[in-house]
């Protein structure tokens, strides 16, 4: 042997972009979860003390204990409405991500398409798309469609921009190698561009998963007739029932944390599976 093999893989520094092949040890995670929980608890206690001592009106700031109590007594309602918001958010995310990835694949292969699409993409990117909700209601009525459309539109552009960058971020030498064995455009896409884009797609998914939730909630403010946590917040603030408003926000936080965690877990599970050999021989 000329180069000494590296026997002690346990002590190798993690390399950028490397994904562990085995399930990660969860114990170090506790070190990341416990401190913020304690900080949150201290903040809640501080607010509780302040509200009680200063006798703050319940129409201005409810007591954290009151919010928690309401959250659990009325849990069925928040859970049910939360599922509606989650549905809008995930529906929009799926449609937006799929459409953006497909268009990005086209743009990555065609300069004409890039020149046609990118300026518009940037124009729409700098426009707050929630401003389009009233229009979407006119076009699509008062059902689920305008809400999903907004969630899709708001997630579309971060995915599009990142996916284009990912599909293009290929080692030019590697591209030369593929050409040297006469690989087809599809083979180059499937075995080079798509796996190269996976980290980019997950990075954009981390952004767009929370954006889709924003889109869903804002749309529900406008369409409070069909429910959802946005509608709950809108209706309860009209009634000046701030405990319910905070409880709905708490449920939104839980949904946001769950979605973001799901993306991180999916990244670990999925990214190393994507480019398994097609044939075994």
């Amino acid at each position, binding site marked *: 042997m000329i180069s000494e093999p590296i026997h002690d893989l346990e002590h190798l520094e993690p390399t950028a972009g490397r994904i562990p092949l085995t399930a990660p040890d969860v114990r170090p995670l506790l070190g990341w979860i416990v401190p913020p929980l304690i900080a949150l608890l201290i903040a809640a206690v501080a607010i509780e003390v302040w509200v009680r001592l200063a006798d703050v009106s319940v129409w201005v700031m409810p007591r954290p204990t009151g919010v928690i109590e309401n959250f659990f007594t009325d849990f069925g309602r928040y859970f049910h409405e939360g599922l509606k918001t989650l549905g809008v958010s995930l529906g929009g995310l799926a449609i937006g991500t799929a459409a953006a990835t497909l268009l990005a694949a086209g743009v990555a292969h065609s300069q004409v398409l890039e020149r046609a699409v990118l300026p518009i993409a940037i124009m729409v990117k700098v426009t707050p798309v929630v401003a389009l909700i009233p229009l979407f209601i006119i076009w699509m009525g008062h059902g689920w469609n305008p809400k999903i459309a907004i969630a899709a539109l708001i997630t579309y552009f971060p995915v599009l921009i990142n996916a284009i960058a990912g599909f293009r971020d290929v080692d030019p030498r590697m591209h030369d190698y593929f050409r040297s064995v006469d690989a087809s455009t599809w083979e180059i896409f499937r075995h080079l561009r798509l796996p190269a884009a996976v980290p980019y797609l997950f990075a954009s998914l981390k952004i767009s998963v929370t954006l889709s939730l924003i889109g869903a909630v804002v749309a529900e403010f406008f369409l409070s007739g069909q429910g959802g946590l946005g509608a709950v917040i809108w209706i309860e603030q009209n009634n000046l029932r701030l405990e319910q408003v905070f409880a709905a926000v708490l449920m939104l936080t839980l949904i946001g944390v769950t979605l973001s965690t799901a993306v991180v877990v999916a990244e670990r599970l999925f990214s190393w599976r994507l*480019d398994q050999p097609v044939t075994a021989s």
Partner: protein
Amino acid sequence: MIKHPIEPDAEPAVRLADIRLTYETKQGALLEAVHPTSLTIRAGEFTALVGPSGCGKTSLLRMIAGLTPPSGGAVSIFGQTPKEAQRHKRLGLVFQEPALLAWRSVEDNVRLGLQLNPRETHSSTNVGELIEIVGLSGFERYRPAELSGGMQQRAALARALAIDPPLLLLDEPFAALDEITREQMRYELQRLWSVSHDPRDPPRSAVFVTHSVAEAVAIADRVLVMSPRPGRIIADIPIVTPRPRRPEHEHSDRFINDTAIVRAALRSPTTPAVPLDAA
């Protein structure tokens, strides 16, 4: 699948007829990268291409590989165009950077050339055996990032050899390695050059681009010296030392004499009087 047999004596491995390469700079000026060059490389010949940095060695290699279209002239690989040679998987490319797929194991990287363009798959290749031959046994499931630079380059060599190409094209494959590894890898390459070979093909040929005179003299049958830009071949020096060659040979009078001839050619009047990096 169908392998296209080549008539052993019918065609040279590479034939270049007046190929040249000119670029247009951003200012609109024409820049000649490779001066019209004609060249024949016989089947079975290991040819080294040396020259100062930026002389067009890599451009010449890329034109042979069909990766850069020449501005004029014709390239023929065993009587075929470079595009046909690509289609029939006749070219084994190795670059300065290992250029492995980071998300694939060593084994799957080596298999890549067999997997792509499957109409031309050489079913006879035993990937496990090839990995053993390049000295990576036990590292089949490792990712490139877990290997040293020398081991990565061995994987890249195995990948190039997996499709059993009659022509190896190597673009400074050891330039990014440390000196000790680099000196050992040239003898590894000499050994690997002829392995896993289909008897129906002509003996394997190689075009090896390097800026190291010692590397060129140590492994090649023939050293072509290129002038600075616009690059053209200014000397064609045969190296007749029998094979297999060993590292000790680098201390022999014959080796020292051959390197002196190549260095003299590099310093010939057409080249500017700058010290050449002769490794």
